């Protein structure tokens, strides 16, 4: 029997079935709608007499072709991948040693510093973006992809330190103690032993950081003003619309193509990501 008493009784099963159907439809519908819209002919899309759920005319790839061939969409994908990779590298370089230091080396202070670091994750971009735009222009990075590469680690590092700190604490410290008896320095033990066995924790940080880069909107909108330097999250909703004309077919294809891979990856690592938020409250 499951944790909910009476989990197999008919009323409970009906409740579950109804709740899951209703919410699955409500939550997934926009993505289904993107898929339907992406493959419809323009004349079909804009005929209000047509049943919008059906393909009243032959499905078409014209929107996808337009998107991939005549827009900056492929460029935005590349920009996002590049920015994501750089942010991941910066985050790992700074967060992995810092988390290890807080977990092992700083004693009582580690916990407090860890919480302080976590609280900086709560400082939102919408509080910082105005002065940050000045900082970005002082650094000479305005309208460059590098502006977000420099700024995004401000929110990926705190959360990554927090996640990795818990991860390192779960490794028994006898591991390094034994290695140090064998003549390694602590830093060598960290590099050669701790990092390899922390692979899954580090992978979580990589995925988490990369998806956050793809999801960020406010900073990219604020710092980058040329369409060709944009990321997918701002490029599609802002620059794929020309004037007041919405190319809904291509727009929806863009949303779908960009969302699905990110969603699949994120989904695989979600439990660990959530564990980062609930440390302490779930035991």
């Amino acid at each position, binding site marked *: 029997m499951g*944790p*909910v008493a*009476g*989990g197999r009784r008919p009323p*409970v099963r009906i*409740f579950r079935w109804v*709740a*899951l159907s209703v*919410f*699955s439809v*409500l*939550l*997934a519908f926009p*993505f289904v*709608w993107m898929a339907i819209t992406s493959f419809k002919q323009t004349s079909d899309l804009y005929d209000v007499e047509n*049943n*919008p759920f059906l393909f009243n005319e032959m499905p078409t790839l014209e929107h996808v072709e337009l998107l991939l061939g005549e827009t900056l969409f492929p460029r935005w994908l590349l920009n996002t991948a590049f920015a994501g990779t750089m942010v991941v590298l910066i985050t790992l370089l*700074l967060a992995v*040693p810092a988390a290890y*230091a*807080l977990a*092992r080396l700083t*004693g009582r202070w*580690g916990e407090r*510093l860890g*919480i302080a*670091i976590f*609280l*900086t994750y*709560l*400082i*939102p971009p*919408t*509080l*910082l*973006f*105005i002065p940050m735009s000045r*900082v970005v222009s002082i650094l000479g990075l305005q309208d460059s992809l590098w502006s977000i590469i420099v*700024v995004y680690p*401000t929110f990926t*590092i705190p959360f990554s330190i927090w996640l990795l700190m818990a991860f390192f604490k779960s490794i028994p410290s006898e591991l390094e103690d034994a290695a140090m008896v064998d003549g390694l320095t602590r*830093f060598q033990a960290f590099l050669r032993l701790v990092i390899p066995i922390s692979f899954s924790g580090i992978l979580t940080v990589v995925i988490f950081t990369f*998806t956050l880069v793809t999801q960020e*909107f*406010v900073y990219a*909108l604020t710092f980058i003003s040329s369409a060709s330097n944009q990321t997918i999250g701002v490029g599609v*909703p802002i620059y794929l619309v020309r004037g007041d004309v*919405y190319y*809904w077919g291509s727009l929806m294809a863009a*949303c779908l193509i960009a*969302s699905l891979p*990110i*969603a699949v990856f*994120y*989904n695989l690592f*979600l439990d660990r990501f*959530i*564990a980062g938020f609930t440390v302490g*409250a779930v*035991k």
Partner: protein
Amino acid sequence: MGLRRDAGRLGAAMFAPALLYIVALVGTPLVLAFLYSVGNVKVGSVGYEFVGLDNFISVLQSPTFRGALLHSFLFTVGAQLIVIISANILALALVDRFRGRGLVRFFILLPWVAPISLGAIGWKWILDSIYSVINWVLVQLHLVEPFDAPMWLGEGALAMLSVIMVHAWRMLPFSTVILLAGLTAIPKDIPEAAAVDGAGFWRTHFQITIPMMTPIINVAVLFGVVFTFTDMTVVYILTRGGPYNSTQVLPSLAFFTGILGGDLAEGAAISVFLVPILVVIAWLMLRLARRAEVV
């Protein structure tokens, strides 16, 4: 003893780069945000002149700002109410294993794991003034007349309702998964014992399970409030704060004033109004964390 000091030194060396980065790129702009809010700074201006509370007085006198303040609370409370009630139901429905659970979970998680700006554009199409699929269904069901279909993003109250619903749509998976983690952590024998004692499903749920989940529900609500109160993506994409500022919230107004309008000082002053809420939330989180340590 020497070993311990070495460890401390190594610890400081390993922690310092991250700390410096955060101080430079979070600390500096945070201090600047407060300085701007009590200064006279425009795009292109070089000097800085202290003006005290002038910016705050000026924004407080603006009806647009007072509207945005009200909308921000409405947006946050509305979206979080919907989210927390729905998340309780969903978590309960998802907690037992059943065939296809992984797939259902993927569907339910989509709004959170896909980039929000793209999800919001999907909704903009669903809520379109002419081609809204919702309106098509309503017309087919004879609930509305074709010429009189609701303008979801074109009328003040409806637009507010729309941005609240879309944000709730986005946040629901996040809260659901947090609550699910809490539900799974409840020792199975407690609700089972209650069932053996004759307590029904709902009674067990409301009198035993929900009280045991209070800390985790608090976590979900606190993060939900932060992510809602400080968000401008949904509003910016769906309505740009319109029609006639009827969906303007503090973050979007700060963006329009400070970034697009170039009035850095007034924009910063608007953003600073987010701080009291964030401080309260940080304090509540620290309390939660401390209590979890003691227990």
